[in-house]
Each structure stands twice: as structure tokens, then as C-alpha cells.
């Protein structure tokens, strides 16, 4: 059995160690500054729509750039529609179940064919 059912991450360090980082890491800053903090809404808020657009489009670009993971940017991995989160159902878990049912069916068909071939 291999470990290819899990994600690769930069290891935090060897056994029992804690790697400390300050608050200057760009990926950490982006994750907080772009997504979190108190939201001020309302008609009078000056719309820097283009900046909002920039962050959304950058994410799409980053998602297609190989270096995203190297930079530690992995926001999509916490998206409940892309992962199964805390055990909740998502498109990926439904797909896994369908795949298992299909494999089981194919296996029974393969078994029947192999059985006939032996006879």
C-alpha cells in the first residue's frame, strides 16, 4: 500500500519539532489579509471593485501556476466544494462513492468472465 492517497506538504520539521515563522510570509499574509478581517458593507463604501477583481483573478491564475504550492498557497484545499472538510458530504465524496460502486460492478463482471474462461 502506498501513501499516494494523501497530499504532499512541506514537512514542518523532523520528529516533534516546531518550525516557527513570523508574519512576513507572503502566503500567510495573503491568506489573512484577503479573506479575513472585519467587513464593512454599504452603499457608501467606495468600491475598489478592480482590486476585488484582481484578487479573484489572481487566485485563478495562481491555481494554474505550478509554483503556487511551493509558495505555500493552498486556499482551494479548504474550499468545502473541493474537499470533504470535517467529514461533510461534498462533490468529491459523492464521486468517491460512485467510483467504488462502479469498481465493484466491474470487479463482479471481471470475476464472471474469469470464471467462464477457467471452465
Amino acid at each position: 500500500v502506498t501513501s499516494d492517497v494523501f497530499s504532499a506538504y512541506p514537512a514542518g520539521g523532523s520528529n516533534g519539532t516546531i518550525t516557527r515563522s513570523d508574519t512576513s510570509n507572503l502566503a500567510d499574509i495573503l491568506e489573512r489579509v484577503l479573506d479575513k478581517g472585519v467587513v464593512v458593507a454599504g452603499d457608501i463604501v467606495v468600491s475598489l471593485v478592480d482590486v476585488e477583481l484582481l484578487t479573484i483573478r489572481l487566485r485563478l491564475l495562481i491555481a494554474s501556476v505550478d509554483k503556487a504550492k511551493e509558495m505555500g498557497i493552498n486556499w482551494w484545499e479548504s474550499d468545502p466544494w473541493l474537499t470533504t472538510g470535517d467529514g461533510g458530504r461534498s462533490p468529491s465524496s459523492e464521486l468517491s462513492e460512485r467510483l467504488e460502486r462502479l469498481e465493484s460492478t466491474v470487479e463482479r463482471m471481471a470475476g464472471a468472465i474469469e470464471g467462464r474462461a477457467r471452465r
Partner: protein
Amino acid sequence: VTETLDATAGPRRAPAVDVGARYLYAIATARTDLVSGSLGRREAESGVELLTEERLCAVVGPVPESMAAAASAAADERELQTAQVALGALEAAVRDHEHVVERVLANTRSMLPIRFGTVLPSPDAVRKLLGQHKKELVALLDALAGRREWGLTVYWEADLAMEAARGRVVPPGGADAPESGPGHRFFAAKRAERAMAAAVRDLCGDVARELDGHLQRLGVVKMRRSADREPGGQSLCVMDAVVLVGVEDEERFLTAVESALRPRRGLSASLSGPWPPYSFVEHIPLVAQ
């Protein structure tokens, strides 16, 4: 009352936004520890100032030039073709924002970081916002007083996690098929792999709950993501969380993380911070009228 940190420094103008507009960085408690001049020279030169309204103060400034540059990068299709260029523009704007917010954190016991890119049309609009939401803002500032956010991600070396989970593997039930054929062997191997994955996930979930239990005694833990489920390689993410910890408990928090990792071989952690409490104020919508 407007307290200008440096009266001689003129505010920088952003080309697309009215000169009176105010970029909002943070909200803090007024006249306690955050005082005029405490944010530093760089902020003063950028025109960052404090606007106070009774017990509250807002840290505001003119729309930073870097923000205007990021906005123009977003508008330019050609720049967006090159992720690096657009990322560069965004990085400068984000770092400018974060720098001011960090200065506020360093000079207050309680502050609320505001979402990147928030601009109100005038200083009066900012004061009105503080006045209208006084009650909830004061309550939130009181609740966060003396506490800072830490990012904690715990990893487990995949081989050691599988070794630890081996006893939990539930033998998979096979389909109704002859046991000797290559088809059966192929699917049996796949079922065994899935059973091992389920056992590791189960164990990782227990480890995350154990860690959560240890840390809850010292701070508020908020899970960002649970154990991995995606294809990958050498180490698994067991827990990805943010923890709100009192400044006086930070040493005990670090010690608690160390001792929570020790019992299991191959566990390690990545810790970032201290951060402003970004993750603990994200569901506080303020309506500016």
C-alpha cells in the same frame, strides 16, 4: 477629533479615488494605549491618522499608492496575463496594509483588523460607522483584549502515520468474485489501499481532536482544515488551525504544542504569528450608511 500623526506630512493621493476618501486599516479602543505618534514614522509620512469617536478610534489614511497600482493591474488584461506582475502589484498593496495593521497590533491591547481594500468616502463617514456600531465594536474589542492569533499546522510523516494506523485497518469485504484472477487481485489491492487510507484518516482525526483538547485549555481554537484526503507524498496535514491566545499564555501555548506532539513519532508543527485576530472577526459585518 482628528489626530494627525505628523501634521507636516501631506496625505498621498490615489489617482482614482477622491482625496477625502479614507482607507480603513483597523479599529481600536481610543485613548488607552494607541496614541498619536505611536505608529511610527513610515505611517506618519503616509498620512495614516487616528479618527476617534467616543471610546473608539479608527486607523485610517489616504488610499495607498500601492493600492491604486494594484487596482490598475486588475484593470489591465495584459498585466493579468503575467501572474508574477499582478502578484507583485498585489503583494505591495497587501504588505502596506499589513504593515500598518501590525503596527496597530504592536501598540494596543485590543484591535480589529479591517478587510483589505476598505475605503469610506470621508472621515465623517468613518466616525459615523464607529458611532452606529459602537456597542458591538466595544464588546468585540473587550472580548479580544490582550489576545493574538497564531496559525498552527500539524504534519505527520506519511510512513509513520500508516505504521501507527495499521492496527485500525478494517479488512475490506470483497466483491463476489473468484479469488485467483488478475481482476480480483487488482480490485482487492485497491480496496486494501482505501481501507488503509480510511484508517489513517480516522487516526489523524483522533490526533487532531486530542490536540484540539489540549489547546482549548489555553485559547480559542478554530479549525481551518482537517486531515488530508487528496493525492500526494511524504507528509500528511493532520490539523490546520488558528488559535486565539492571551499574550500572557503564549509561552504555555508553545509548550503545550510541543508536549502534544511528543507522544507520536513523526509529528511536527509549523507555527506562525503572532497575528492580529483576523480569523476571529471575519463574520462581523459592519454597515456604513
